[in-house]
C-alpha cells in the first residue's frame, strides 16, 4: 500500500537531514541561536530578565523535543516558533506581569534609551538615529500582539514571510495582512502620515 504522503525530492530530504543533524551538537545550537532568541524575546517582552528566562525555556524545550525535529524548517525557524509560542502564552496568561512584579521595582517597559545604553556603538550614535529608534520602539509597543510579532520578526530578525508564517503557524497571506497593518500604524506613529503619499 502506497503512502498518502507525497514523495519529496531527494535533495529536500538531504537538506532536512542536514538540518536535523544540526541538533546533535546542541551546545553549538545554543551558541549560534541564543542571541537571536534572546533579542526577539527582549523586543517582544521589553524586559531583560524576562527575555533571558524565556530564552532559557526556549532552549530547554528545544532540547527536550530535539528527537522529534525532522528538519521540515530550519533550526532557526523552529526555535523562533517555540519562542513565539512562549511569548504568546506568557502574555495571554498574564504570567508575565506577575513575574515582572517579582523581579523589578517598576512595571515600566524597558525604554529605548535604556536599551541603547547597552549598545556597543551608543556613544557614536547620532541623536537623530536614537530618536528614530525610539519612535519605532514606542510605536511597536501599541501594536496588537500579532502585528507586533510579525513586524519584529520581519524588521528585527529579517525573516521572510514564509519563515514568519511557519514560526507563527499562520498562512503567508495572513502574515502579510498583519505586516501591512503594522507598517501602516508604525508609519503613522513615526510622523510620516497615513494613507497615500502626498
Amino acid at each position, binding site marked *: 500500500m502506497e503512502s498518502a504522503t507525497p514523495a519529496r525530492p531527494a535533495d529536500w530530504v538531504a537538506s532536512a537531514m542536514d538540518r536535523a543533524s544540526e541538533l546533535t551538537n*546542541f551546545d553549538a545550537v545554543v551558541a549560534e541561536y541564543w542571541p537571536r532568541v534572546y533579542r526577539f524575546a527582549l523586543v517582544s517582552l521589553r524586559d531583560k530578565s524576562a527575555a533571558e528566562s524565556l530564552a532559557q525555556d526556549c532552549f530547554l524545550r528545544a532540547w527536550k523535543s530535539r528527537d522529534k525535529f525532522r528538519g521540515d524548517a530550519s533550526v532557526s525557524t523552529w526555535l523562533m516558533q517555540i519562542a513565539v509560542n512562549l511569548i504568546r*502564552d506568557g502574555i495571554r496568561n498574564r504570567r508575565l506581569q506577575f513575574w515582572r512584579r*517579582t523581579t523589578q521595582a517598576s512595571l515600566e517597559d524597558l525604554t529605548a534609551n535604556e536599551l541603547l545604553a547597552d549598545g556597543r556603538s551608543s556613544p557614536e550614535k547620532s541623536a537623530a538615529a536614537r530618536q*528614530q529608534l525610539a519612535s519605532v520602539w514606542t510605536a511597536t509597543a501599541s501594536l496588537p500582539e500579532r502585528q507586533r510579532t510579525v513586524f519584529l520578526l520581519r524588521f*528585527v530578525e529579517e525573516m521572510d*514571510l514564509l519563515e514568519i508564517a511557519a514560526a507563527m503557524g499562520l498562512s503567508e497571506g495572513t502574515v502579510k495582512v498583519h505586516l501591512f497593518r503594522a507598517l*501602516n500604524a508604525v508609519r503613522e506613529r513615526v510622523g510620516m502620515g497615513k494613507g497615500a503619499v502626498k
Partner: protein
Amino acid sequence: MTTQHFTGDQVSQWVAGEKPAELAAHLEVCGACSAHVTRFETVLAGFHDGIHDATASVRIPAFEPPSAAWQFAPRWALAGAVAAFVVAVPFYRGADQPRPVPVPSPVVVAEVSDAQLLEQINAQLARHVPGPLEPLESLSYSPLEELTKGQNQ
C-alpha cells in the same frame, strides 16, 4: 497605474520587500514617493541596527541537559541543593551512632531523589506555560517532603 502616488498599502508592500514592476516604475519617475519610501526604509533600518547594536554583547550561557542543568536553570538548582541538604542531614546526624537496624541505603535514597527530580523537571518542561512565568509558589515543590516521609517510616 504609475501616475498616482503610492497608497498606504503600497508603501507597506514596498518596504516589506514586495516590489512589483509597476511600483518600481512609479518610483523611477516620482520624487515624492521615492523620497517617502526611502525615508521609511531608513527609519526601519535604523530600528533594526539599533536593536542589534544594543544586544550585540549578550552573554550566552553554557548549556547542559536538563538532568544536570543546574547552571542553566538556576531555579531548579535551588530545589536540587535544598533536596541534597535535607537528604544529607539525617545521615550526618547519625554518623557517630551505632546502627543496629539497617536503614535505607543512601544510594537507594539518592536514586529515588534523582528520579523524583527528573520527573519534576519533565513536568516543568511539559507545561504549556513557560516556567519563568509561573508564580514562585511553583518552586515550593520539592521531593523533600516525600523523602522526609520515607525517612520517618
